[in-house]
């Protein structure tokens, strides 16, 4: 906690309320910062239907307005696969990354408030060659696009 506190104090001026309170030791940032929940059910699904159900239902429409960028066709190592997704669908609320053949399909879900560009990049693990889905929620509807990413045999750890 000490280093954390130092870090927060050092940053001075425009501290967020949460960081400020945490720095003062008044609140536990773990409890305070993300007031939002973690959708446990959604992270335990194995197919698109049950993932969608856990996320709040809806039938995704394939859309050319959901686009992968900086996402390779072949991953030299499945432990680190760069994925970039951008949405041109108006009023995009969230972007999710789903890997079809992973033990659990949902890898990450990004909630996009107004004012944030509907585009994110991150890196995910892939157990094997698989379709990867970019799932966008906008105006209560779901839009999806997919891309196959091959995971090479080269990636066995040495």
């Amino acid at each position, binding site marked *: 906690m000490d280093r954390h506190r130092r870090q927060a104090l050092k940053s001075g001026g425009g501290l967020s309320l949460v960081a400020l309170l945490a720095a003062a030791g008044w609140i536990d940032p773990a409890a305070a910062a993300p007031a939002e929940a973690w959708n446990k059910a959604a992270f335990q699904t194995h197919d698109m239907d049950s993932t969608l159900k856990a996320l709040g239902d809806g039938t995704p429409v394939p859309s050319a307005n959901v686009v992968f960028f*900086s*996402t*390779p*066709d*072949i*991953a*030299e*190592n499945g*432990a*680190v696969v*760069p994925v*970039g997704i951008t949405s041109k669908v108006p009023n995009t609320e969230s972007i999710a990354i789903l890997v079809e053949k992973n033990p659990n399909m949902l890898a990450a879900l990004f909630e996009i408030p107004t004012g944030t560009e509907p585009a994110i*990049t991150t*890196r995910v693990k892939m157990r094997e060659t698989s379709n990867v889905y970019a799932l966008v929620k906008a105006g209560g509807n779901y839009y999806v696009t997919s891309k196959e990413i*091959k995971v*090479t*045999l*080269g*990636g*066995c*750890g*040495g």
Partner: protein
Amino acid sequence: MPRKLRSIPGAAAALALAVITVTLPIVSVPAAAQESVEKAIEQYRQDLQGGNPAELWEARGEEIWNTPRGPKHASFKSCDLGLGPGIVKGAYAQLPRYFPDAGRVLDLESRLVWCMVNQQGLTHAEATKVTFGKGSRKRSDLEALTAYVVAQSDGTKMNVSLADPHVRDMYEIGEKMFFYRAGTHDFACATCHGSDGKRIRLQDLPNLTKKADAQRAYTSWPAYRVSQGEVRTFQWRLHDCLRQQRFPDLIYGSDASIALTTYLAARANGAAYAGPGMKR
């Protein structure tokens, strides 16, 4: 050294070696298919360039560098990497070099160990307790320090001076070692890294007898190794190459390791150092 022999896997090394032995001289993948795979893999490497987790090691290394430690309560600010006590900027691009206070040619890692032992008062065993880390439960100060130091040479031209006879000797020993065939597989470094067009599965191997390949290979280590989620140093690179050749365990900071490093570092002279890198 090898830009991509790093690719031979731990558990599958035996299999991989068997494959190399049989197929190294012959590439059976159709040229066009191979080319498109290479392009795709190049794309993968580019897509990864945005953020190198080695920066997390650099930050930790900087903190260790500046913190007094050991029985003598000394920080690395008194550690001379060749450009004066505590000077880090550009130091890595001139290593290995001869250090009169140590009476030896030292590479970066062995110099860090020397400073820990002679200036901070740690025993050699304490200083080298974790040379290669494994996750947050077994972290290596040496890997963090190395990441910090090499990053301060990013963009600096490699300039290992062979004017000193000690360094020249080590270079020549390193060169002999590079071509020396031995072990159960009758392998030398040069078996995989002495001619063009060698590969292990999808990994093309640099021909370290060619200047351009040697420069590209050396200047991209140390590196964040994606498959391990760790920063690996050049000492690790050599250690794992020799393991793959079925040679005896390369002792961390040994003269043998420093001789090979001197040979490969000097062959990179003239190229801008570009690390820490990021590799599959």
